[in-house]
């Protein structure tokens, strides 16, 4: 197991993995979110090649109301 930070919370995942895999492992079902890793935007096209490693910080954001 490795530890990563998902939306500000420490979370254990089974191993280092790409963004597609972590989304599946964390059970994100609803589409329409965007991802940043360590403060940098990760486009959908690069999910496969972006590896989440120990202590990485991942943000998964979705549409909400805004002013």
């Amino acid at each position: 197991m490795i530890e990563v930070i998902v939306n500000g919370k420490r979370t254990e995942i089974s191993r280092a993995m790409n963004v597609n895999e972590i989304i599946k492992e964390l059970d994100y079902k609803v589409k329409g979110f965007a991802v940043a890793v360590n403060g940098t935007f990760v486009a959908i096209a690069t999910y496969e090649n972006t590896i989440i490693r120990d202590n990485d910080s991942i943000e998964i954001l979705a549409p909400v109301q805004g002013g």
Partner: protein
Amino acid sequence: MNEELGMRNEEWEIGGKTLSSRLLIGSALYPSPANMEDAIKISGSQIVTVSLRRQAAGGTDGSGGNQFWDIIKSMGIEVLPNTAGSHSAKEAITTAQMAREVFGTNWVKLEVIGDQYNLQPDPFETVKAAEVLIKEGFEVFPYTTDDLVVAKRLADVGCNIIMPWGSMIGSGKGLMNPDNLVAIRKQFPDLQLVVDAGIGKPSHAAQAMELGYDGVLLNSAIALAQDPVMMADAFRVAVEAGRLGYKAGTMKEREFASPSTPTIGTPFWHQFD
């Protein structure tokens, strides 16, 4: 009646789009998503601001976020994602990039907060982020103060739109420094200028439009009204009135009273008195 008058619903261009409404409206703080939808519809607004927040695993975050987004998508209006909550250029840039993917627009309301107490924008980080985002193809709608020099810097880095505040976000205090807003209008006759934040009453919106601003952006004034839908209607009318007033050309202020009723033939006046 609008068509008969021929002066309302005048088209204007912002961010590469031709629109008729000059009222930009926020989507937050309404009593319910249905109320938000009704308010947006009656406001006539064609641009609605939206945002991004952390998504919980498994489905929704329980805040009705998906229902909200489904409603907005169904309305066929332009969305203007904001970078609210950003405290640095880096955070704002990343948020804008994420928003472009999620919302499918290159528009971004650039918001970099410099002080948590009054939510005043950080001018240095805002300019820095605007420069990067414009190079990346974004149409940047920067939220800024009413400081003329900051507006100049934003224009220098390529902003076509500048959105100075009327007063603090959510304060409802109206236009704190109309003279500053006028100075920005005079310096930038060709940019699209929108008063963003601080508007609390329809009269504030009308005042901004009378100053020659191209539009107003507000949220709390409608969403926190006792009747948001009626208030949205009031703002629609106020923005139209202010715009028409500006175009019609207001009279010059005078230092002394001047009667409007003709003095010739005034009754009960005697020449021999």
